[in-house]
């Protein structure tokens, strides 16, 4: 919302030494956020009033003339101009060198320089309204017309800045609408003026709320008083469509609205001035000379100005004449009753509509208007009188010949002042310091509260303009006091430290250890993907869509499913990155969802099942190596992250994994995840070419963290161990696991070195190299003992694994 400081100054005399920046700062700190300060005169620099002293034809161009212009400097300036209405002795709008104008009213502003036009010197430019941002205020009748202040009857001085002449020398504060959403009283200048008066402790001018008296009634019937607590109808005759006076057009423009015609502009002016929306109907179109405020009947329709047709329903509150609906109450008028060039009398509606109904209708028909935006915040019924009074004043000023011939104030329900008690004790405790009674009372009075203090409690009545929901509990009053004093003035009070409870959260710690292990120890990069995932990758991973949870309004049609696994996201990430990197490792820790029942906080709330998963992938060329890299990551995980150990089984193949190369991860007896190579089809369907990937996924809730670091200390060997390498020839079917199991109790240490298949190895066999360490607990091994031990080991390997030495 835009706030004109010119209009504000009609309501409050601000201290003269106050800068605009200070006003913006104080409003931001105490009331609403000022996003920008706009000086509306900025763009009018070097655009001044000039008087055409002499006019003569251009020797080389029929359409151009040469003007000698007085711009308030020592000499006359020669300006070449093609304007259609150039008149000697008239005051016009001149852009001097350095000014920026919009050429023919289109495009970016252009810098004016001294130049020559068809061989004749031209000092600057005599401008049309569109060229100098004045089209709304002085609408041109034809394209070549220049702004002629004399013709327009505008008082001005030669050399005066045009911004000042047009009243555009204002300062406008741009306010963030979001910060206003709880303050219905601030949606007009008067409300903001009241805040400023309270902040600077200066008086606020009173507004008239006088209603017309002694006039015949206009028939108004309210069927839904809960939704329309007050409706005034004023019949104003002997008016016609004309332009508003320049001051009004300027103000409306500065407030971000467009001037239309005086009848409409008056309603907009009232709205920005006091925050009270109103609407002018062409009274000749109100059939039966009667207004009925009622809900629409099924089947009724309303045609809007842009010919859009709305299908109304029984929840839509309408302003109707005796025959049919004329407008969406509080939001928008229809086509039928709108102001037309031939309008000669208007029925002015100044009414109150309650917020919930307005919001509902706005939502239902997707109609957001300046009027609706105000009603949806909750406008008090008392404000209607300010609106009526100001409207009538404006009509009388702009249409001195108008006649007000009928008036009705239908007022079934009035906004009650909210009555709230707040104790001194509560204030002292929450504010953290004791404020004198006089200061509290002063602040509240300035904001419009009525206050009585009985020594313990302030009995407060909130003003009606804050009583439509904004102020309802003592905390609201506390907030008003705190913000007006200024949050920055309160003493800083550090929090008390509590030494009693150690924060010990092994689960949270484990989650962090897992990520740090993968990133810092294993060289993985952490990624984030969205919870909604492209169906293509879910299908590529062959994940059952039946169990997946779906979004009602997904970001895109293919993103309707919420993830039940992190693997599709891994596929997507591999697809995004494999063009740039030959080998890379990524991981993600996130929640996934599945249909089911889960109640974390209350029995009544049943959510889908959530699982906390951790997934990772290594992409590269050598598939087999990738698999063992991932396997190594999982094997090291429990030790480095300090949780109960993991092992592998082959129980259930994950849907995304290769036929042969996969394992399930187990913690204790429970399968908590899987590792494997990503299947050929999953890669192909994801569009991943020329690269393989190994992946893992596990449920981190299945890990059991230790309460602290639990590495076990083993005494160092007292006698040296003997290291021996063995190269075995075994059948292909013999696994490392079998070899390990066969001799693990005979050795101190056992390490796999490599596996080999090649020319020297017979078909159906493989060579396995391992390294073992043996030793005695109580002495150094003699060479005899070593030979004996090795012979024993080889014998066992031969017997259990059919292995022979190479």
């Amino acid at each position, binding site marked *: 919302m835009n706030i004109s400081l010119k209009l504000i100054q009609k309501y409050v005399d601000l201290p003269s030494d106050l800068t605009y920046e200070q006003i913006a700062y104080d409003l931001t700190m105490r009331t609403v956020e000022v996003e920008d300060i706009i000086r509306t005169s900025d763009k009018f620099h070097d655009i001044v009033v000039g008087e055409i002293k002499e006019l003569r034809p251009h020797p080389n161009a029929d359409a151009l003339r040469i003007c000698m212009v007085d711009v308030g400097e020592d000499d006359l300036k020669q300006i070449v101009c093609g304007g259609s209405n150039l008149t000697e002795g008239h005051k016009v709008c001149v852009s001097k060198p350095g000014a920026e104008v919009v050429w023919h009213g289109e495009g970016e502003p252009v810098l004016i320089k001294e130049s020559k036009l068809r061989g004749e010197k031209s000092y600057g430019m005599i401008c049309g309204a569109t060229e100098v941002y004045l089209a709304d205020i002085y609408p041109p009748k034809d394209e070549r017309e220049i702004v002629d202040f004399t013709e327009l009857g505008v008082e001005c001085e030669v050399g005066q800045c045009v911004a000042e002449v047009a009243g555009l020398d204002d300062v406008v504060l741009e306010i963030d609408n979001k910060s206003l959403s709880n303050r219905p009283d601030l949606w007009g200048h008067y409300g903001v003026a009241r805040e400023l008066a309270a902040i600077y402790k200066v008086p606020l001018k009173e507004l008239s709320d006088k209603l017309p008296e002694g006039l015949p009634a206009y028939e108004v019937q309210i069927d839904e008083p809960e939704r329309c607590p007050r409706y005034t109808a004023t019949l104003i005759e002997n008016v016609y469509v004309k332009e508003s006076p320049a001051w009004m057009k300027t103000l409306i423009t500065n407030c971000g609205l467009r001037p239309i015609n005086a009848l409409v502009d008056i309603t907009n002016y009232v709205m920005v001035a006091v925050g009270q929306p109103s609407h002018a109907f062409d009274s000749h179109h109100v059939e039966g000379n009667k207004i009925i405020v009622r809900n629409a009947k099924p089947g009724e329709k309303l045609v809007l100005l842009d010919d859009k047709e709305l299908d109304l329903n029984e929840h839509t509150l309408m302003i109707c004449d005796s025959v049919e609906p004329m407008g969406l109450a509080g939001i928008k008028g229809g086509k039928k009753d709108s102001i037309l060039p031939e309008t000669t009398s208007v029925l002015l509606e100044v009414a109150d509509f309650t917020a919930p109904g307005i919001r509902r209708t706005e*939502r239902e028909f997707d109609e957001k208007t300046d009027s609706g935006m105000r009603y949806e915040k909750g406008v008090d019924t008392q404000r209607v009188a300010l609106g009526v009074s100001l409207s009538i004043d404006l009509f009388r000023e702009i249409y001195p010949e108008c006649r007000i011939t009928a008036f009705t104030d239908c007022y079934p329900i009035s906004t009650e002042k909210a009555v709230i008690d707040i104790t001194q004790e509560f204030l002292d405790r929450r504010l953290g310091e004791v404020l004198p009674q006089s200061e509290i009372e002063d602040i509240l009075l300035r904001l419009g509260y009525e206050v009585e203090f009985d020594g313990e409690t302030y009995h407060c009545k909130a003003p009606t303009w804050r009583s439509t929901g904004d102020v309802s509990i003592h905390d609201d009053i506390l907030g008003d006091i705190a913000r007006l004093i200024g949050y920055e003035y309160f003493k800083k009070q550090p929090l008390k430290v509590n030494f009693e*409870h150690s924060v010990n959260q092994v689960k949270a710690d484990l989650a962090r250890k897992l990520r740090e292990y993968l990133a810092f120890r294993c060289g993985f990069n952490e990624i984030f993907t969205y919870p909604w995932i492209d169906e293509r990758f879910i299908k590529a991973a062959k994940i059952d869509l039946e169990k997946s949870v779906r979004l009602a309004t997904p970001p895109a049609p293919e993103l309707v499913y919420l993830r039940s696994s992190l693997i599709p996201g891994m596929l997507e990430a591999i697809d995004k990155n494999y063009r740039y990197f030959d080998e890379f490792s990524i991981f993600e820790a996130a*929640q996934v969802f599945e249909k089911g029942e889960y109640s974390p906080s209350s029995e009544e709330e049943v959510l889908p099942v959530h699982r906390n998963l951790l997934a990772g992938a290594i992409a590269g060329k050598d598939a087999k190596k990738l698999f063992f890299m991932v396997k190594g990551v999982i094997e090291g995980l429990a030790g480095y992250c300090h949780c109960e150990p993991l092992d592998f089984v082959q129980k259930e193949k994950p849907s995304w994994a290769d036929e042969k190369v996969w394992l399930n991860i187990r913690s204790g007896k429970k399968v908590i995840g899987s590792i494997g190579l990503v299947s050929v089809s999953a890669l192909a369907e994801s569009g991943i070419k020329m690269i393989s990937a190994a992946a893992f996924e596990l449920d981190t809730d299945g890990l059991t963290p230790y309460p602290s670091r639990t590495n076990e200390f083993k005494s160092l060997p007292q006698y040296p161990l003997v290291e021996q390498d063995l190269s075995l020839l075994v059948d292909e079917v013999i696994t490392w696991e079998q070899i390990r199991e066969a001799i693990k109790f005979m050795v101190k240490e056992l390490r796999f070195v490599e596996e080999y298949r090649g020319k020297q190895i017979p078909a159906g066999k493989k060579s396995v190299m391992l390294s073992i360490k043996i030793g005695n607990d109580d002495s150094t091994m003699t060479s005899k003992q070593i030979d004996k031990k090795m012979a024993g080991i080889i014998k066992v390997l031969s017997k259990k694994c059919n292995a022979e030495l190479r």
Partner: protein
Amino acid sequence: MLDKLEQIRAEGFDRISGAPDREKLEMIRKELTGKKSSLQEVLKSLGGLDPDMRKSVGMKANEVKNLFAEKIRQKEEELIAKASVVEGEIDLTLPGIEVSGGALHPITQMCYDLNDAFRSLGFEIYSEDDISSEKFAFDNLNFAADHPARASMDTYWLEGTENKSGNERLCLRPHLTGGSVRYLIEHGAPARFVYPGRVYRNETTDARHERAFFQYEALIVDRDVSFSSGRVMIETILEKVFGRKVNVRMREGFFPFTEPGYEIDMECLLCGGKGCKACNHAGWIEVMPGGVIHPNVLRAAGLDPDEWTGFYTNIGLDRLVMMRYGVDDVRLFHSADLRFLKQFK
């Protein structure tokens, strides 16, 4: 004979001095003092000399032998001192071998920095699940029944629940605040905890707007806390995160779940508060909404608002990280693009 020894010594010294490396020196040592050396020959021939001569020649020969040993030791030391492990030329400007390391996501890094800061102040870390209900995301938090955020224009409702209400209408959580009531229901008061996480809004995305983004919320509930403590807490946390004092200011703000509510602005770190493009020439950046817990929220958590109070602080993590590194497009955070992520060590 003595002259010959002197000649052997002189020649030997020359050869030792000229030895280019330890290998050659070893060869020279063998040649000068080994069994076949001329010195040995002299010693062997001692028997044929007269006793006087034998004595003086023997002494001289031994002296030469000792001199050789000493000279060789010196030469060896000299060679060791001059020796390099590497033979031949080496280009020291070649790059080092890269440390192969991964990294945490920059958002996670910031989150952990904040965790460390809050943990040091005795806060617990809590996390709510991603899917919540209208009851916890809106009703409990004092959002008006027709608050626009409840519409599907703003919130991602789950299919099949979008037309229900309260406990039965489910969504991807639109903010973290619902988690505060869950925690308080579970643990009661007093409490001080943080609950970082990702939230979801149905928005049109651009360089500054995302559908999924990260927040970091902290809540303190206690008997007597003044809201000015909130500002002290934030100053402490920011000082810890950015490694220096960061000025903050607290101003009026409004949120359904607070009364009073406030906005906490942080001095723009890029311009030091002078005003620059990043802060829209304001010198301040709005980073943290917060406020005193609304009594209705305390009631929803089963706490008596006359007894308990406290305050929220919500930090927009994406924005803070963008500020920390000068990232210009919020969408990069969910891009999974390693060219981006590998920049954050």
